[in-house]
């Protein structure tokens, strides 16, 4: 288990000191990628067939490949279930890759878009949008959401680095908690004043219920492009994760890599929050799990995180629908129930090192 607690650092315990090679497991990674993709497809099938009205697998197959708009089950599948399941998968991949990049770039084991204020920032700007431009097209909402994520991150990192002694993981988490509290309070005030609390409430808790094809269409190029870009810069991220000095020594232009990485993180977190709301902890758990499974090479970590992240959110959404049917439990709450113990474990580890 000790490997989990040593993120972004070469794991010396499993390698003899004579070999400076980093611990990677390409085989495990390939297995995760293929196994993960297969279970993702199976999971989509299962997830689509379960719900308030159970639908047989054969009907799901029919609906996807021989769509007939006169049949109600076909319509349920194509209009309600499939988009939300795909949306959940996409959001999971976004949060997980954003988390992996943040942890790699800042060498901070407790980095997560929820903990560091990105989600709250995006949420705040979205609350503003709902209040002042009701009915704003999703295309613009998502752009504002990027902006909000940037504002949240800027506040947290700015205040964190103002402190004497510079940025430490713990200080960032504390600043993130306070900034999130502030932005959440402001959004709540806005929601109450403009009476949009009902619209925002479920969205705050996090849920993929309302996802439709149009949103997916707008989101896909952003998320797809960002994940692709993340994979392209993954080599540089691995070097950065060894430490700024090492990366510079190896001829990296670290400023450039950090800039590109930050833009990617903002796009991923922003678009994910625009679709599901403030779901935290995905970006915390998944990269740690992935690093434990496949080693420290970000060329493997990023794609594997994407796959595992989408699996997590998809199954959390499935569970959210099954806990108390026909009501839905917010996905964010369910993920938090897994995420909190994990965070406690990390906090304990981190505290020990200080």
């Amino acid at each position, binding site marked *: 288990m000790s490997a989990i607690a040593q993120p972004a650092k070469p794991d010396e315990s499993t390698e003899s000191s004579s070999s400076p090679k980093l611990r990677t497991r390409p085989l495990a990674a390939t297995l995760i990628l293929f196994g993960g993709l297969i279970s993702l497809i199976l999971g989509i099938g299962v997830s689509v067939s379960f719900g308030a009205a159970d639908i047989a697998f054969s009907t799901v197959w029919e609906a996807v490949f021989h769509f007939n708009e006169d049949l109600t089950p076909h319509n349920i599948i194509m209009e309600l279930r499939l988009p939300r399941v795909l949306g959940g998968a996409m959001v999971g991949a976004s949060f997980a890759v954003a988390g992996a990049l943040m942890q790699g770039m800042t060498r901070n084991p407790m980095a997560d878009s929820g903990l560091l204020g990105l989600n709250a920032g995006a949420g705040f700007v979205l609350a503003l949008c709902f209040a002042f431009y009701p009915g704003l097209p999703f295309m613009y909402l998502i752009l504002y959401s990027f902006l909000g994520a940037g504002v949240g991150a800027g506040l947290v990192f700015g*205040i*964190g680095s*103002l*402190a*004497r*002694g*510079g940025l*430490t993981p*713990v*200080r960032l*988490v*504390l*600043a993130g*908690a*306070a*900034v999130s*509290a*502030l932005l*959440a*309070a*402001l959004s*709540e*005030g806005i929601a*109450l*004043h403009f009476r949009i*609390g009902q619209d925002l*409430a479920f969205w705050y*808790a996090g849920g993929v219920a309302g996802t439709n094809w149009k949103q997916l269409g707008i989101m896909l190029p952003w998320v797809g492009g960002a994940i692709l870009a993340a994979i392209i810069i993954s080599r540089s991220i691995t070097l950065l994760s060894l430490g700024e000095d090492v990366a510079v020594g190896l001829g990296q232009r670290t400023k450039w890599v950090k800039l590109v990485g930050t833009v990617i993180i903002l796009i991923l977190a922003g678009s994910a929050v625009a679709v599901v709301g403030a779901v*935290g902890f995905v970006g915390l758990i998944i990269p740690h799990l992935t690093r434990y499974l496949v080693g420290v090479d970000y060329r493997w970590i990023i794609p594997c995180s994407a796959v595992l992240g989408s699996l997590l959110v998809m199954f959390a959404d499935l569970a959210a629908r099954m*806990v*108390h049917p026909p*009501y*839905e*439990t*917010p996905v*964010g*709450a*369910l993920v*938090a*129930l897994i*995420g*909190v*113990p994990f*965070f*406690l474990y990390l*906090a*304990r580890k*981190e*505290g*020990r090192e*200080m």
Partner: protein
Amino acid sequence: MNVQLATTERRKTKRGVTIMLIIAAMIMITFIISMNTGYIRLTPLDMIRTLIGMGTHNQELILFQFRLPRIVISVLIGAGLAVSGCILQGISRNALADPGILGINAGAGLMVMLYVSYFPTTSMRSVFLLPLLALLGAGLTAALIYTLAYRRHKGISPISLILVGIAVAAGISAVMIVLTLRLDPDKYQFVATWLAGSIWGTNWKFVLALLPWIVVLLPFVFYKARAMNVLTLGDQLATGLGAPVEKERLMLLAAAVGLAGSSVAVSGGIGFVGLIGPHLARRLVGPKHQQLLPTSALAGALLVIAADTIGRTVLQPTEIPTGIVVAVIGAPYFLYLLARAKA
């Protein structure tokens, strides 16, 4: 030498008393402003006339049944939360401790919510039961955080206490979200405003339910001020001075939990008061608890009564829950403290 020390000591005490009187005067002024503001405006003259029993029936109704209990409650919970924060900061020797940040408020909230979702909220029985339940929830959460943050041989490090607190608060609020969705719409509305920290118990019954806790616990804590002074020196020094460290700490912790729990039962999730109150007080009167504790109580009361007044007036006719106003003031202050803290 000794004489000189005694005179500076006396001068400091005098200064502390002056500061407390000033804050008390500010509370009185805010009190009067708060009595006048609201959906229906009353002139100061009307107010005084009503207070001495010469107002119209409507004016009496507004003042005595709606505004006065609410203001009294905000003063009480402000004092309770601030003193609770002051104790927590003292015994954990952690400048960032606050019952809200540490998740104690969330624990109390969870119990209140569980009760509200199964029983009616307005009966007399539940008015007195709620503080007890909130206390139970706060106590359990405090015990949980204490156990999780405790490490053998090292005791409790300030930072791990806060990290564990943040995580526990996040976990509890996730559980609460899961639970709220099962409620019917009426109760959902109640719980939602409660969570945002609005002073919902605008009723003399709640004043009665809260008052015994504050009246018993505050003097007890003030009486323990000397023990707190010793505890803040650190465990080793305190033991060396002959203080029963563990026993004192446990008693004070219980008092802090009691104050936070009973306040939260009436006020809902108001955070940051326990952080700001003691900090302001420390800046004004210094670290001696004989003066720090009462000044914290006054500063907390002033903060909550002011926040409540602001919340009622800024965006009329919408009432912004007090908790939101306090968070908007408190979070930047927390960040400021964080930026100033040494690594």
